[in-house]
């Protein structure tokens, strides 16, 4: 138990992880917002696919001694472009992602096997880092999150229209295809940023789970993104704070919080529909 939670020296530890907390807050805001579109566009699987190629990019960057963040972003963007071009129909998209994913993972594993540096660096790319986000990395995360959040705010309305009601949006002259590509690029950036904190295998805990929980609770286009954002921020920042003392990766804490929120959301939904049926009957 002491390895899991250790709150001694907490007051001295907090300033040390200030960077991580800022990164976590921004990741949460970004992940929660874009997650709503991931859900409405049915792109959960694409998130997974992009994250594996992002991992491959990061692993290659690690091997050849380049900036890991840059590698992760490059891998993500390549994956997003391939999925956007080849997978405009949902059915094609899933098979293309399924084909890309193991390839990306394989390349990444190869690069890591050849890498002779610290083992923690290797493992971190797949399952998340120990709490130590350095200054250049935090700068990178801040920049990426800001681009994604700002980009989403600009295209929010037409992207919602194109995601929720594509046939009518297209008839009304909304450039649904271009918006789809813009969305994939924003998603690629979001994935690349998340991979560096929670790891390639667990990206969905930030980009899917909070939005899925929010959509269990509300159908309001205002409350869904707000709740999703709150859930994601609570998961990441809470996860970092809980992980602080133990020296373990933050990802299990983040994923557990995020999953618990989802469970609670389902229970609340169940209770609500239960009372409704009773009232009706």
């Amino acid at each position: 138990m002491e390895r899991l939670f250790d709150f001694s020296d907490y007051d001295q530890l907090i300033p040390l992880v200030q960077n991580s907390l800022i990164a976590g807050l921004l990741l949460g805001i970004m992940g929660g917002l874009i997650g709503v579109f991931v859900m409405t566009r049915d792109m959960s699987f694409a998130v997974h696919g992009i994250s594996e190629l992002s991992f491959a990019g990061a692993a290659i960057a690690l091997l050849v001694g380049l900036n890991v963040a840059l590698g992760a972003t490059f891998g993500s963007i390549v994956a997003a472009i391939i999925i956007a071009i080849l997978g405009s129909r949902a059915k094609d998209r899933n098979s293309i992602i399924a084909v890309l994913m193991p390839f990306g993972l394989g390349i990444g594993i190869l690069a890591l096997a050849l890498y002779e540096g610290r083992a923690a660096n290797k493992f971190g790319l797949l399952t998340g880092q120990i709490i130590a986000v350095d200054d250049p990395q935090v700068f990178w995360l801040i920049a990426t999150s800001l681009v994604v959040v700002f980009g989403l705010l600009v295209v929010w309305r037409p992207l919602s229209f194109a995601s929720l009601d594509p046939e009518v949006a297209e008839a009304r002259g909304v450039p649904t295809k271009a918006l789809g590509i813009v969305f994939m690029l924003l998603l690629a950036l979001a994935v690349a940023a998340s991979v560096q904190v929670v790891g390639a295998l667990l990206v969905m805990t930030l980009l899917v789970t909070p939005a899925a929980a929010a959509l269990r609770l509300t159908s309001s286009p205002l409350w869904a993104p707000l709740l999703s954002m709150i859930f994601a921020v609570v998961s990441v920042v809470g996860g970092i704070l809980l992980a602080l003392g133990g020296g373990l990766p933050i990802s299990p804490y983040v994923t557990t919080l995020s999953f618990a929120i989802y469970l609670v959301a389902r229970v609340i939904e169940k209770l609500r529909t239960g009372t409704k049926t009773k009232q009706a009957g």
Partner: protein
Amino acid sequence: MATESVLEFKKASLSFGDKSIWKDLTLSVAKGEFIAVIGSNGSGKTVLLKAILGQLQLSGGAIELLGKPVANGSRAIGYIPQHRQADTGLPLRAKDLLRMGLDGHRFGLPLPSSKTNKKVSEMLEAVGATDIANTPIGQLSGGQLQRIRVAQAVIDNPQLILADEPLSALDLKQQGLVAELINSRRQQNGAAVLFVTHDVNPVLDYIDRVLYLANGQFRIGTPDEVLRSDVLSKLYGRSVDVVRNQGRIAVLGSSDHDHHDDEKWL
């Protein structure tokens, strides 16, 4: 009624490979005109709408919307799609779907605005949907959703309403209500309506003309001019009976030999 033309087909032809869907279609749709597009499955009704929306390349001729060649959709068009049950779990309520017809194309956030809210609630009232304004679209019945669809299509005062089988999957009573709603909005807005349907009866009282597609050919005219045994027999190239009974019209034996499900009362 003004004779100003909203939509012009100029010898428009469409073919997929060797198969000609329709050829040399020339038709001028006037402001406020209600035209039913009918024909059996595969006769090119839905692709006609896609061509107007600029989603299909013509193989010949041109289609002009308000004097300009059609582009990828247009804000002058209100579009009513076929009824399809909406997914549950989407962050979208009836009033949100409706609002997208008004400002969904604009950049930025859908910030609350009293002007927009007023338009949306007026429209909800006009289609008798005030009580379902906050219902998630996944929970709407077929008739409710199609009423919202009509409202969404007309809220931005389009000059052309395109409806793609908007009544399919609705029961007779709902068909009547939705058809009446489209017609009343047309009368108020002066928009032209192109109404694709396999059953002309729910809109028979409202339509000015019929565009009948079959066998890569077409006939245009008033229902009395087109929906006749001799005219349709010539169009299909074999004997077809048009039967009128108590104000309803049925076309018998109109199916292509491989579409037996069409051998029914139209």
